[in-house]
Protein backbone atom coordinates (compact mmCIF):
# COMPACT_ATOMS: atom_id res chain seq x y z
CA UNK A 1 0.00 0.00 0.00
CA UNK A 2 1.47 3.36 -0.97
CA UNK A 3 1.57 6.50 1.11
CA UNK A 4 -1.57 7.99 -0.43
CA UNK A 5 -3.60 4.84 0.11
CA UNK A 6 -2.54 4.78 3.72
CA UNK A 7 -3.53 8.40 4.16
CA UNK A 8 -6.99 7.82 2.71
CA UNK A 9 -7.44 4.71 4.87
CA UNK A 10 -6.35 6.73 7.89
CA UNK A 11 -8.84 9.50 7.19
CA UNK A 12 -11.65 6.97 6.72
CA UNK A 13 -10.80 5.30 10.02
CA UNK A 14 -10.61 8.60 11.88
CA UNK A 15 -13.99 9.69 10.46
CA UNK A 16 -15.54 6.33 11.36
CA UNK A 17 -14.04 6.48 14.85
CA UNK A 18 -15.46 9.94 15.48
CA UNK A 19 -18.89 8.96 14.19
CA UNK A 20 -19.07 5.49 15.78
CA UNK A 21 -20.07 6.38 19.36
CA UNK A 22 -22.83 8.65 18.01
CA UNK A 23 -24.18 6.11 15.51
CA UNK A 24 -24.01 3.10 17.81
CA UNK A 25 -24.88 4.42 21.26
CA UNK A 26 -25.40 0.88 22.59
CA UNK A 27 -21.79 -0.09 21.93
CA UNK A 28 -20.01 2.91 23.43
CA UNK A 29 -18.24 0.89 26.12
CA UNK A 30 -17.08 -1.71 23.60
CA UNK A 31 -15.84 1.00 21.24
CA UNK A 32 -13.84 2.63 24.02
CA UNK A 33 -12.40 -0.80 24.87
CA UNK A 34 -11.50 -1.33 21.22
CA UNK A 35 -9.18 1.69 21.25
CA UNK A 36 -7.51 0.39 24.39
CA UNK A 37 -6.95 -2.90 22.58
CA UNK A 38 -5.48 -1.10 19.56
CA UNK A 39 -3.12 0.74 21.86
CA UNK A 40 -2.16 -2.53 23.59
CA UNK A 41 -1.31 -4.22 20.32
CA UNK A 42 0.58 -1.20 18.95
CA UNK A 43 2.72 -0.80 22.05
CA UNK A 44 3.40 -4.52 22.31
CA UNK A 45 4.65 -4.49 18.76
CA UNK A 46 7.36 -1.92 19.55
CA UNK A 47 9.28 -4.56 21.49
CA UNK A 48 7.75 -7.78 20.20
CA UNK A 49 7.55 -7.05 16.50
CA UNK A 50 10.05 -4.34 15.69
CA UNK A 51 12.82 -5.16 18.17
CA UNK A 52 12.29 -8.91 18.38
CA UNK A 53 12.01 -8.98 22.15
CA UNK A 54 8.80 -10.77 22.99
CA UNK A 55 7.40 -9.71 26.32
CA UNK A 56 4.62 -11.10 28.44
CA UNK A 57 5.00 -8.29 30.95
CA UNK A 58 3.96 -5.04 29.24
CA UNK A 59 0.83 -5.20 31.36
CA UNK A 60 2.85 -3.96 34.37
CA UNK A 61 3.04 -0.48 32.85
CA UNK A 62 -0.70 -0.41 32.29
CA UNK A 63 -1.35 -1.52 35.88
CA UNK A 64 1.21 0.92 37.28
CA UNK A 65 -0.44 3.80 35.45
CA UNK A 66 -3.82 2.72 36.73
CA UNK A 67 -2.72 2.59 40.34
CA UNK A 68 -0.66 5.80 40.18
CA UNK A 69 -3.62 7.72 38.79
CA UNK A 70 -6.04 6.23 41.32
CA UNK A 71 -3.76 7.06 44.25
CA UNK A 72 -3.34 10.65 43.04
CA UNK A 73 -7.08 11.05 42.65
CA UNK A 74 -7.66 9.60 46.09
CA UNK A 75 -5.02 11.57 48.01
CA UNK A 76 -4.52 14.64 45.79
CA UNK A 77 -7.76 16.41 46.71
CA UNK A 78 -8.21 17.64 43.14
CA UNK A 79 -11.34 18.06 41.06
CA UNK A 80 -12.26 15.25 38.70
CA UNK A 81 -10.70 16.38 35.42
CA UNK A 82 -7.47 17.92 36.77
CA UNK A 83 -7.10 14.79 38.88
CA UNK A 84 -7.65 12.52 35.91
CA UNK A 85 -5.21 14.27 33.61
CA UNK A 86 -2.56 14.76 36.30
CA UNK A 87 -3.08 11.12 37.24
CA UNK A 88 -2.51 10.01 33.66
CA UNK A 89 0.64 12.13 33.58
CA UNK A 90 1.87 10.71 36.86
CA UNK A 91 1.06 7.18 35.68
CA UNK A 92 3.04 7.74 32.51
CA UNK A 93 6.02 9.17 34.41
CA UNK A 94 6.11 6.27 36.85
CA UNK A 95 5.62 3.69 34.10
CA UNK A 96 8.45 5.19 32.03
CA UNK A 97 10.74 5.28 35.06
CA UNK A 98 9.84 1.68 35.84
CA UNK A 99 10.58 0.69 32.25
CA UNK A 100 13.97 2.41 32.47
CA UNK A 101 14.90 0.64 35.70
CA UNK A 102 13.56 -2.80 34.80
CA UNK A 103 14.71 -2.49 31.22
CA UNK A 104 18.31 -1.77 32.14
CA UNK A 105 18.15 -4.82 34.41
CA UNK A 106 16.50 -7.43 32.22
CA UNK A 107 16.86 -6.19 28.64
CA UNK A 108 20.40 -7.48 28.56
CA UNK A 109 18.96 -10.98 28.49
CA UNK A 110 18.43 -12.57 25.18
CA UNK A 111 15.34 -14.06 23.63
CA UNK A 112 13.35 -16.48 25.71
CA UNK A 113 15.10 -15.62 28.97
CA UNK A 114 13.75 -12.10 28.58
CA UNK A 115 10.29 -13.46 27.75
CA UNK A 116 10.20 -15.57 30.90
CA UNK A 117 11.60 -12.78 33.06
CA UNK A 118 8.80 -10.49 31.91
CA UNK A 119 6.26 -13.24 32.56
CA UNK A 120 7.60 -13.41 36.11
CA UNK A 121 7.52 -9.62 36.49
CA UNK A 122 3.93 -9.38 35.34
CA UNK A 123 2.69 -11.93 37.84
CA UNK A 124 4.93 -10.67 40.65
CA UNK A 125 3.47 -7.18 40.14
CA UNK A 126 -0.07 -8.51 40.53
CA UNK A 127 0.85 -10.50 43.62
CA UNK A 128 2.68 -7.57 45.21
CA UNK A 129 -0.20 -5.20 44.49
CA UNK A 130 -2.67 -7.61 46.05
CA UNK A 131 -0.58 -7.74 49.22
CA UNK A 132 0.13 -4.01 49.62
CA UNK A 133 -2.32 -2.30 51.98
CA UNK A 134 -1.62 1.27 50.74
CA UNK A 135 -3.27 0.53 47.39
CA UNK A 136 -6.11 -1.49 48.83
CA UNK A 137 -4.38 -4.92 48.73
CA UNK A 138 -6.58 -7.75 47.46
CA UNK A 139 -9.82 -5.79 47.71
CA UNK A 140 -8.68 -3.30 45.05
CA UNK A 141 -9.38 0.40 44.64
CA UNK A 142 -12.32 2.43 43.39
CA UNK A 143 -11.39 5.55 41.39
CA UNK A 144 -13.72 8.58 41.66
CA UNK A 145 -16.95 8.42 39.69
CA UNK A 146 -17.26 10.38 36.45
CA UNK A 147 -19.23 13.59 37.17
CA UNK A 148 -21.95 12.91 34.57
CA UNK A 149 -24.17 10.10 33.35
CA UNK A 150 -22.35 6.83 32.55
CA UNK A 151 -23.41 7.28 28.93
CA UNK A 152 -21.50 10.54 28.66
CA UNK A 153 -18.53 9.02 30.40
CA UNK A 154 -18.23 6.34 27.70
CA UNK A 155 -18.34 9.01 24.98
CA UNK A 156 -15.64 10.97 26.78
CA UNK A 157 -13.42 7.95 27.40
CA UNK A 158 -14.08 6.60 23.93
CA UNK A 159 -12.72 9.77 22.37
CA UNK A 160 -9.91 9.96 24.91
CA UNK A 161 -8.69 6.44 24.14
CA UNK A 162 -9.16 6.99 20.44
CA UNK A 163 -6.99 10.09 20.75
CA UNK A 164 -4.34 8.14 22.65
CA UNK A 165 -4.35 5.30 20.12
CA UNK A 166 -4.16 7.78 17.23
CA UNK A 167 -1.28 9.70 18.81
CA UNK A 168 0.62 6.52 19.54
CA UNK A 169 0.02 5.26 15.99
CA UNK A 170 1.31 8.51 14.48
CA UNK A 171 4.29 8.63 16.83
CA UNK A 172 5.17 5.03 16.03
CA UNK A 173 4.73 5.59 12.29
CA UNK A 174 7.18 8.48 12.51
CA UNK A 175 9.58 6.67 14.85
CA UNK A 176 9.78 3.57 12.64
CA UNK A 177 10.97 5.76 9.76
CA UNK A 178 13.88 7.26 11.67
CA UNK A 179 17.31 5.84 12.39
CA UNK A 180 15.93 4.76 15.72
CA UNK A 181 13.38 2.51 14.03
CA UNK A 182 16.03 1.09 11.75
CA UNK A 183 18.22 0.38 14.77
CA UNK A 184 15.37 -1.53 16.40
CA UNK A 185 14.90 -3.61 13.27
CA UNK A 186 18.65 -4.22 13.12
CA UNK A 187 18.51 -5.56 16.68
CA UNK A 188 15.67 -7.88 15.70
CA UNK A 189 17.43 -9.17 12.64
CA UNK A 190 20.83 -9.76 14.20
CA UNK A 191 21.71 -8.22 17.50
CA UNK A 192 25.38 -9.22 17.47
CA UNK A 193 25.95 -7.66 14.09
CA UNK A 194 24.10 -4.53 15.17
CA UNK A 195 26.35 -4.34 18.20
CA UNK A 196 29.44 -4.94 16.11
CA UNK A 197 28.38 -2.08 13.83
CA UNK A 198 28.56 0.22 16.81
CA UNK A 199 24.92 0.53 17.78
CA UNK A 200 24.41 0.86 21.50
CA UNK A 201 21.84 -1.89 21.49
CA UNK A 202 21.07 -1.86 25.22
CA UNK A 203 20.25 1.84 25.04
CA UNK A 204 17.96 1.38 22.04
CA UNK A 205 16.12 -1.51 23.66
CA UNK A 206 15.53 0.36 26.91
CA UNK A 207 14.38 3.45 25.01
CA UNK A 208 11.95 1.36 22.96
CA UNK A 209 10.51 -0.21 26.09
CA UNK A 210 10.17 3.23 27.68
CA UNK A 211 8.23 4.40 24.64
CA UNK A 212 5.84 1.47 25.06
CA UNK A 213 5.55 2.21 28.79
CA UNK A 214 4.73 5.87 28.12
CA UNK A 215 1.57 5.06 26.16
CA UNK A 216 0.57 2.17 28.38
CA UNK A 217 0.97 4.34 31.49
CA UNK A 218 -1.21 7.10 30.01
CA UNK A 219 -3.79 4.57 28.91
CA UNK A 220 -3.82 2.79 32.27
CA UNK A 221 -4.25 6.06 34.13
CA UNK A 222 -7.52 6.70 32.33
CA UNK A 223 -8.67 3.08 32.00
CA UNK A 224 -9.06 2.71 35.76
CA UNK A 225 -11.56 5.56 35.73
CA UNK A 226 -13.54 4.11 32.88
CA UNK A 227 -13.73 0.61 34.35
CA UNK A 228 -14.70 2.08 37.72
CA UNK A 229 -12.94 -0.54 39.80
CA UNK A 230 -9.32 -1.65 40.02
CA UNK A 231 -8.66 -5.24 40.94
CA UNK A 232 -4.97 -6.09 41.28
CA UNK A 233 -5.09 -9.38 39.38
CA UNK A 234 -8.13 -8.99 37.11
CA UNK A 235 -7.92 -5.45 35.74
CA UNK A 236 -4.62 -3.78 36.62
CA UNK A 237 -2.10 -6.59 36.21
CA UNK A 238 -4.40 -8.88 34.25
CA UNK A 239 -1.72 -11.09 32.74
CA UNK A 240 -4.12 -13.86 31.72
CA UNK A 241 -6.44 -11.54 29.82
CA UNK A 242 -5.03 -8.17 28.69
CA UNK A 243 -1.44 -9.35 28.96
CA UNK A 244 -2.01 -12.30 26.65
CA UNK A 245 -4.42 -10.51 24.37
CA UNK A 246 -1.87 -7.87 23.45
CA UNK A 247 0.58 -10.53 22.29
CA UNK A 248 -2.13 -12.40 20.47
CA UNK A 249 -3.57 -9.35 18.69
CA UNK A 250 -0.17 -8.23 17.45
CA UNK A 251 0.67 -11.71 16.18
CA UNK A 252 -2.77 -12.19 14.65
CA UNK A 253 -2.51 -8.97 12.68
CA UNK A 254 1.10 -9.51 11.70
CA UNK A 255 3.88 -8.51 14.03
CA UNK A 256 6.58 -6.19 12.89
CA UNK A 257 4.22 -4.19 10.65
CA UNK A 258 2.62 -0.86 11.41
CA UNK A 259 -0.96 -1.72 10.46
CA UNK A 260 -0.83 -5.34 11.61
CA UNK A 261 -1.45 -4.74 15.32
CA UNK A 262 -4.32 -2.36 14.51
CA UNK A 263 -5.92 -4.93 12.24
CA UNK A 264 -5.32 -7.71 14.76
CA UNK A 265 -6.89 -5.66 17.54
CA UNK A 266 -9.98 -4.98 15.42
CA UNK A 267 -10.42 -8.61 14.41
CA UNK A 268 -9.77 -9.99 17.88
CA UNK A 269 -11.91 -7.48 19.72
CA UNK A 270 -14.89 -7.81 17.40
CA UNK A 271 -14.69 -11.62 17.48
CA UNK A 272 -14.39 -11.53 21.22
CA UNK A 273 -17.35 -9.21 21.71
CA UNK A 274 -19.50 -11.25 19.36
CA UNK A 275 -18.79 -14.69 20.73
CA UNK A 276 -17.43 -14.32 24.25
CA UNK A 277 -20.82 -14.09 25.93
CA UNK A 278 -21.85 -17.45 24.47
CA UNK A 279 -18.76 -19.06 25.97
CA UNK A 280 -19.46 -18.25 29.59
CA UNK A 281 -16.97 -20.18 31.68
CA UNK A 282 -15.12 -21.42 28.61
CA UNK A 283 -13.51 -18.16 27.49
CA UNK A 284 -10.03 -19.15 28.55
CA UNK A 285 -10.37 -22.53 26.89
CA UNK A 286 -11.28 -20.71 23.70
CA UNK A 287 -8.44 -18.24 24.23
CA UNK A 288 -5.97 -21.08 24.72
CA UNK A 289 -7.21 -22.80 21.58
CA UNK A 290 -6.95 -19.55 19.60
CA UNK A 291 -3.40 -18.99 20.84
CA UNK A 292 -2.32 -22.49 19.93
CA UNK A 293 -4.03 -22.33 16.54
CA UNK A 294 -2.54 -18.95 15.63
CA UNK A 295 0.93 -19.77 16.87
CA UNK A 296 1.03 -23.19 15.24
CA UNK A 297 -0.75 -22.60 11.95
CA UNK A 298 -0.66 -18.85 11.33
CA UNK A 299 2.44 -17.37 12.95
CA UNK A 300 2.98 -14.78 10.22
CA UNK A 301 -0.35 -13.07 10.89
CA UNK A 302 -2.89 -11.57 8.50
CA UNK A 303 -0.64 -8.85 7.07
CA UNK A 304 2.32 -11.22 6.94
CA UNK A 305 0.21 -13.61 4.88
CA UNK A 306 -0.99 -10.83 2.60
CA UNK A 307 2.55 -9.63 2.12
CA UNK A 308 3.74 -13.10 1.22
CA UNK A 309 0.82 -13.47 -1.20
CA UNK A 310 1.12 -10.10 -2.99
CA UNK A 311 4.66 -8.88 -2.31
CA UNK A 312 4.57 -6.30 -5.11
CA UNK A 313 1.92 -4.29 -3.24
CA UNK A 314 4.36 -3.77 -0.42
CA UNK A 315 7.13 -2.46 -2.61
CA UNK A 316 9.10 -5.70 -2.66
CA UNK A 317 10.48 -6.37 -6.09
CA UNK A 318 10.12 -9.93 -7.37
CA UNK A 319 13.02 -11.41 -9.26
CA UNK A 320 11.78 -12.64 -12.59
CA UNK A 321 13.88 -15.41 -14.07
Amino acid sequence: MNGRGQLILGIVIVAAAIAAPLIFPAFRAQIAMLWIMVLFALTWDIMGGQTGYNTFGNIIFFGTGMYASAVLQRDGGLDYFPGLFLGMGLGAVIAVALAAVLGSMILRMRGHYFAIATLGLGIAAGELASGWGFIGAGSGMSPPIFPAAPDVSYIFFGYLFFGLALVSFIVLALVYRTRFGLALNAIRDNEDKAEALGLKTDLYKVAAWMLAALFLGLCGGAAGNMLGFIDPRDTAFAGATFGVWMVLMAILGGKGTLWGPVLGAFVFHVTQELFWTYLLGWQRVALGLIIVAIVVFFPQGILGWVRARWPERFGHRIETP
Partner: protein
Amino acid sequence: MIDNIQLLFDAPFLLLQVALDGILFGAIFAIAAYGMALVWGVMNVINIVQGEFVMLGGFITFQLTLWGINPFFGIPIAAAVLFVFGIALYYVVIRRVVDKDMFISLLATFGLSILLQQLMNQIWGGDVRTVQSGLSTWFLFDYTVTVGQIKVVAGVGALLLGLILIVFLKKSRLGQAIRATAQNPRAARVLGIDTDKVFAATYGINAALCGAAGALVVMAYSVHPYIGLPYTVRSFMIVIVAGLGNLPGVIMAGLGLGAAENFAAFILGAQFQVAFVFCLLVVILVVRNTLLRRQRKYLK
Protein backbone atom coordinates in the same frame (compact mmCIF):
# COMPACT_ATOMS: atom_id res chain seq x y z
CA MET B 1 8.84 -8.90 59.58
CA ILE B 2 11.71 -8.24 62.02
CA ASP B 3 9.66 -9.91 64.75
CA ASN B 4 9.39 -13.02 62.66
CA ILE B 5 13.15 -13.17 62.12
CA GLN B 6 13.66 -12.66 65.85
CA LEU B 7 11.21 -15.46 66.53
CA LEU B 8 13.20 -17.84 64.36
CA PHE B 9 16.36 -17.17 66.36
CA ASP B 10 14.60 -17.42 69.70
CA ALA B 11 13.00 -20.74 68.92
CA PRO B 12 15.44 -23.11 67.20
CA PHE B 13 12.77 -25.78 66.88
CA LEU B 14 10.68 -23.41 64.83
CA LEU B 15 13.70 -22.87 62.59
CA LEU B 16 13.96 -26.63 62.19
CA GLN B 17 10.25 -26.89 61.49
CA VAL B 18 10.30 -24.25 58.75
CA ALA B 19 13.44 -25.67 57.15
CA LEU B 20 12.12 -29.24 57.22
CA ASP B 21 8.75 -28.32 55.73
CA GLY B 22 10.51 -26.36 53.02
CA ILE B 23 12.92 -29.13 52.10
CA LEU B 24 10.15 -31.73 51.90
CA PHE B 25 8.10 -29.39 49.70
CA GLY B 26 11.17 -28.72 47.58
CA ALA B 27 11.59 -32.41 46.77
CA ILE B 28 8.32 -32.23 44.82
CA PHE B 29 9.51 -29.20 42.85
CA ALA B 30 12.53 -31.28 41.91
CA ILE B 31 10.35 -33.89 40.12
CA ALA B 32 8.64 -31.29 37.95
CA ALA B 33 12.05 -29.77 37.30
CA TYR B 34 13.53 -33.11 36.12
CA GLY B 35 10.79 -33.22 33.53
CA MET B 36 11.35 -29.66 32.42
CA ALA B 37 15.11 -30.20 32.13
CA LEU B 38 14.48 -33.31 30.07
CA VAL B 39 12.13 -31.61 27.62
CA TRP B 40 14.28 -28.49 27.42
CA GLY B 41 17.48 -30.43 26.89
CA VAL B 42 16.12 -32.92 24.37
CA MET B 43 13.54 -30.92 22.45
CA ASN B 44 14.66 -27.33 23.09
CA VAL B 45 11.16 -26.44 24.27
CA ILE B 46 10.43 -24.55 27.49
CA ASN B 47 7.28 -26.24 28.66
CA ILE B 48 5.06 -23.63 30.34
CA VAL B 49 2.27 -26.18 30.74
CA GLN B 50 4.37 -28.06 33.36
CA GLY B 51 2.49 -26.69 36.36
CA GLU B 52 -0.89 -27.59 34.84
CA PHE B 53 0.33 -31.17 34.38
CA VAL B 54 1.09 -31.22 38.11
CA MET B 55 -2.36 -29.90 38.95
CA LEU B 56 -3.97 -32.37 36.54
CA GLY B 57 -2.17 -35.26 38.25
CA GLY B 58 -3.53 -33.99 41.55
CA PHE B 59 -7.08 -33.73 40.24
CA ILE B 60 -6.94 -37.25 38.76
CA THR B 61 -5.95 -38.60 42.17
CA PHE B 62 -8.75 -36.56 43.72
CA GLN B 63 -11.20 -38.08 41.24
CA LEU B 64 -9.97 -41.59 42.11
CA THR B 65 -10.66 -41.03 45.80
CA LEU B 66 -14.17 -39.89 44.88
CA TRP B 67 -14.58 -43.32 43.29
CA GLY B 68 -13.31 -44.88 46.51
CA ILE B 69 -9.82 -45.82 45.40
CA ASN B 70 -6.88 -45.43 47.77
CA PRO B 71 -4.99 -42.23 46.82
CA PHE B 72 -1.66 -44.04 46.75
CA PHE B 73 -2.81 -45.83 43.61
CA GLY B 74 -3.19 -42.32 42.24
CA ILE B 75 0.58 -42.04 41.85
CA PRO B 76 0.96 -44.70 39.13
CA ILE B 77 -2.49 -44.07 37.65
CA ALA B 78 -1.99 -40.30 37.34
CA ALA B 79 1.45 -40.95 35.85
CA ALA B 80 0.00 -43.39 33.31
CA VAL B 81 -2.89 -41.13 32.33
CA LEU B 82 -0.61 -38.14 31.92
CA PHE B 83 1.90 -40.20 29.94
CA VAL B 84 -0.80 -40.91 27.37
CA PHE B 85 -2.06 -37.32 27.56
CA GLY B 86 1.46 -35.98 27.06
CA ILE B 87 2.04 -38.14 24.00
CA ALA B 88 -1.31 -37.10 22.54
CA LEU B 89 -0.49 -33.47 23.18
CA TYR B 90 2.88 -33.95 21.50
CA TYR B 91 1.35 -35.32 18.32
CA VAL B 92 -1.38 -32.68 18.19
CA VAL B 93 0.54 -29.52 19.08
CA ILE B 94 4.11 -29.73 20.32
CA ARG B 95 5.35 -31.64 17.28
CA ARG B 96 4.56 -28.67 15.08
CA VAL B 97 6.51 -26.18 17.16
CA VAL B 98 9.60 -28.23 18.12
CA ASP B 99 11.86 -27.02 15.34
CA LYS B 100 10.52 -23.45 15.29
CA ASP B 101 11.72 -20.39 17.14
CA MET B 102 11.73 -20.91 20.91
CA PHE B 103 9.21 -18.10 21.45
CA ILE B 104 6.69 -19.94 19.29
CA SER B 105 6.85 -23.02 21.50
CA LEU B 106 6.83 -20.83 24.60
CA LEU B 107 3.64 -19.14 23.44
CA ALA B 108 2.03 -22.40 22.30
CA THR B 109 2.61 -24.09 25.66
CA PHE B 110 1.43 -20.91 27.39
CA GLY B 111 -1.80 -21.15 25.40
CA LEU B 112 -2.16 -24.79 26.43
CA SER B 113 -1.65 -23.81 30.03
CA ILE B 114 -4.48 -21.24 29.91
CA LEU B 115 -6.68 -23.80 28.20
CA LEU B 116 -6.01 -26.54 30.76
CA GLN B 117 -6.52 -24.16 33.69
CA GLN B 118 -10.09 -23.42 32.77
CA LEU B 119 -10.80 -26.95 31.61
CA MET B 120 -9.85 -28.20 35.07
CA ASN B 121 -11.94 -25.43 36.58
CA GLN B 122 -14.93 -26.62 34.55
CA ILE B 123 -14.47 -30.27 35.43
CA TRP B 124 -13.54 -30.12 39.11
CA GLY B 125 -14.67 -26.65 40.13
CA GLY B 126 -12.70 -23.75 41.51
CA ASP B 127 -12.20 -25.04 45.03
CA VAL B 128 -8.93 -25.90 46.69
CA ARG B 129 -8.84 -29.70 46.74
CA THR B 130 -6.91 -31.99 49.01
CA VAL B 131 -7.01 -35.72 49.68
CA GLN B 132 -6.65 -37.52 53.00
CA SER B 133 -3.83 -39.99 52.71
CA GLY B 134 -4.72 -41.81 55.92
CA LEU B 135 -1.21 -41.45 57.33
CA SER B 136 -0.59 -39.85 60.71
CA THR B 137 1.79 -37.19 61.93
CA TRP B 138 5.06 -37.56 63.83
CA PHE B 139 5.68 -35.26 66.78
CA LEU B 140 9.35 -34.68 67.51
CA PHE B 141 11.16 -32.88 70.31
CA ASP B 142 8.34 -32.82 72.80
CA TYR B 143 5.62 -31.83 70.32
CA THR B 144 7.50 -28.75 69.10
CA VAL B 145 8.19 -30.08 65.62
CA THR B 146 5.47 -31.82 63.64
CA VAL B 147 6.15 -33.83 60.52
CA GLY B 148 3.27 -35.17 58.44
CA GLN B 149 4.26 -38.71 57.41
CA ILE B 150 2.77 -38.08 53.99
CA LYS B 151 5.19 -35.20 53.47
CA VAL B 152 8.09 -37.54 54.20
CA VAL B 153 6.61 -40.13 51.85
CA ALA B 154 6.22 -37.43 49.19
CA GLY B 155 9.79 -36.23 49.65
CA VAL B 156 11.29 -39.72 49.55
CA GLY B 157 9.03 -40.67 46.65
CA ALA B 158 10.27 -37.66 44.71
CA LEU B 159 13.89 -38.61 45.23
CA LEU B 160 13.12 -42.22 44.30
CA LEU B 161 11.48 -41.09 41.05
CA GLY B 162 14.59 -39.09 40.27
CA LEU B 163 16.72 -42.18 40.85
CA ILE B 164 14.49 -44.30 38.60
CA LEU B 165 14.73 -41.64 35.88
CA ILE B 166 18.54 -41.55 36.08
CA VAL B 167 18.81 -45.34 35.82
CA PHE B 168 16.28 -45.36 32.99
CA LEU B 169 18.20 -42.74 31.02
CA LYS B 170 21.53 -44.52 31.56
CA LYS B 171 20.55 -48.14 31.00
CA SER B 172 17.46 -48.54 28.85
CA ARG B 173 17.50 -48.49 25.09
CA LEU B 174 14.99 -45.63 24.93
CA GLY B 175 16.96 -43.71 27.55
CA GLN B 176 20.09 -43.99 25.44
CA ALA B 177 18.16 -42.85 22.39
CA ILE B 178 16.87 -39.85 24.35
CA ARG B 179 20.37 -38.90 25.43
CA ALA B 180 21.70 -39.33 21.92
CA THR B 181 18.97 -37.07 20.55
CA ALA B 182 19.73 -34.49 23.20
CA GLN B 183 23.38 -34.44 22.16
CA ASN B 184 22.77 -34.11 18.45
CA PRO B 185 19.36 -34.70 16.89
CA ARG B 186 20.66 -34.76 13.34
CA ALA B 187 23.36 -37.33 14.03
CA ALA B 188 20.85 -39.39 15.97
CA ARG B 189 18.54 -39.39 12.96
CA VAL B 190 21.41 -40.45 10.70
CA LEU B 191 22.13 -43.36 13.03
CA GLY B 192 18.58 -44.62 12.66
CA ILE B 193 16.89 -43.19 15.73
CA ASP B 194 13.33 -42.10 15.07
CA THR B 195 13.65 -38.70 16.73
CA ASP B 196 9.94 -38.01 16.37
CA LYS B 197 9.17 -41.01 18.58
CA VAL B 198 11.94 -40.05 20.96
CA PHE B 199 10.46 -36.57 21.30
CA ALA B 200 7.01 -38.05 21.90
CA ALA B 201 8.38 -40.40 24.56
CA THR B 202 10.32 -37.58 26.21
CA TYR B 203 7.26 -35.38 26.38
CA GLY B 204 5.18 -38.28 27.69
CA ILE B 205 7.75 -39.09 30.38
CA ASN B 206 7.79 -35.43 31.40
CA ALA B 207 4.01 -35.40 31.73
CA ALA B 208 4.10 -38.68 33.68
CA LEU B 209 6.66 -37.27 36.13
CA CYS B 210 4.46 -34.22 36.63
CA GLY B 211 1.43 -36.45 37.12
CA ALA B 212 3.17 -38.44 39.85
CA ALA B 213 4.28 -35.18 41.45
CA GLY B 214 0.69 -33.94 41.32
CA ALA B 215 -0.56 -37.09 43.08
CA LEU B 216 1.94 -36.39 45.87
CA VAL B 217 0.99 -32.70 45.95
CA VAL B 218 -2.72 -33.39 46.40
CA MET B 219 -2.03 -35.77 49.28
CA ALA B 220 0.58 -33.72 51.11
CA TYR B 221 -0.58 -30.19 50.18
CA SER B 222 -3.44 -29.04 47.93
CA VAL B 223 -4.32 -28.36 44.30
CA HIS B 224 -6.34 -25.67 42.55
CA PRO B 225 -6.91 -25.10 38.82
CA TYR B 226 -5.17 -21.72 38.74
CA ILE B 227 -2.04 -22.33 40.82
CA GLY B 228 -0.09 -24.30 38.24
CA LEU B 229 2.06 -21.43 36.99
CA PRO B 230 4.14 -21.09 40.18
CA TYR B 231 5.16 -24.76 39.72
CA THR B 232 6.25 -24.01 36.17
CA VAL B 233 8.28 -21.04 37.33
CA ARG B 234 9.84 -23.04 40.16
CA SER B 235 10.90 -25.79 37.76
CA PHE B 236 12.29 -23.20 35.39
CA MET B 237 14.34 -21.57 38.14
CA ILE B 238 15.64 -24.91 39.35
CA VAL B 239 16.71 -25.90 35.86
CA ILE B 240 18.45 -22.56 35.30
CA VAL B 241 20.32 -22.80 38.58
CA ALA B 242 21.25 -26.47 38.18
CA GLY B 243 21.91 -26.44 34.45
CA LEU B 244 20.57 -28.83 31.84
CA GLY B 245 21.50 -32.48 32.20
CA ASN B 246 22.50 -32.26 35.84
CA LEU B 247 19.97 -34.31 37.79
CA PRO B 248 21.78 -34.30 41.17
CA GLY B 249 21.99 -30.53 40.80
CA VAL B 250 18.27 -30.37 40.10
CA ILE B 251 17.56 -32.23 43.35
CA MET B 252 19.80 -29.96 45.41
CA ALA B 253 18.40 -26.81 43.82
CA GLY B 254 14.87 -28.08 44.36
CA LEU B 255 15.42 -28.72 48.05
CA GLY B 256 17.15 -25.36 48.45
CA LEU B 257 14.35 -23.51 46.68
CA GLY B 258 11.75 -25.21 48.86
CA ALA B 259 13.56 -24.17 52.03
CA ALA B 260 14.17 -20.60 50.80
CA GLU B 261 10.53 -20.20 49.82
CA ASN B 262 9.26 -21.48 53.14
CA PHE B 263 11.51 -19.10 55.07
CA ALA B 264 10.36 -16.22 52.89
CA ALA B 265 6.72 -17.14 53.48
CA PHE B 266 7.34 -17.28 57.21
CA ILE B 267 9.22 -13.99 57.40
CA LEU B 268 7.24 -11.89 54.88
CA GLY B 269 3.85 -13.48 55.44
CA ALA B 270 2.17 -16.25 53.45
CA GLN B 271 0.40 -13.79 51.11
CA PHE B 272 3.78 -12.87 49.64
CA GLN B 273 4.97 -16.43 48.96
CA VAL B 274 3.96 -16.47 45.29
CA ALA B 275 5.27 -12.93 44.80
CA PHE B 276 8.57 -14.12 46.31
CA VAL B 277 8.76 -17.00 43.81
CA PHE B 278 8.29 -14.69 40.83
CA CYS B 279 10.63 -12.00 42.16
CA LEU B 280 13.26 -14.63 42.84
CA LEU B 281 12.89 -15.77 39.23
CA VAL B 282 13.70 -12.28 37.97
CA VAL B 283 16.62 -11.94 40.39
CA ILE B 284 18.06 -15.30 39.35
CA LEU B 285 17.78 -14.42 35.68
CA VAL B 286 19.46 -11.05 36.21
CA VAL B 287 22.29 -12.59 38.23
CA ARG B 288 22.75 -15.38 35.71
CA ASN B 289 22.93 -12.85 32.91
CA THR B 290 25.50 -10.69 34.67
CA LEU B 291 27.66 -13.72 35.39
CA LEU B 292 27.49 -15.07 31.87
CA ARG B 293 27.75 -11.71 30.15
CA ARG B 294 31.45 -11.41 30.74
CA GLN B 295 32.08 -14.70 28.98
CA ARG B 296 29.42 -13.86 26.37
CA LYS B 297 27.97 -17.33 26.91
CA TYR B 298 24.44 -15.93 26.81
CA LEU B 299 24.81 -15.83 23.07
CA LYS B 300 24.19 -19.57 22.95
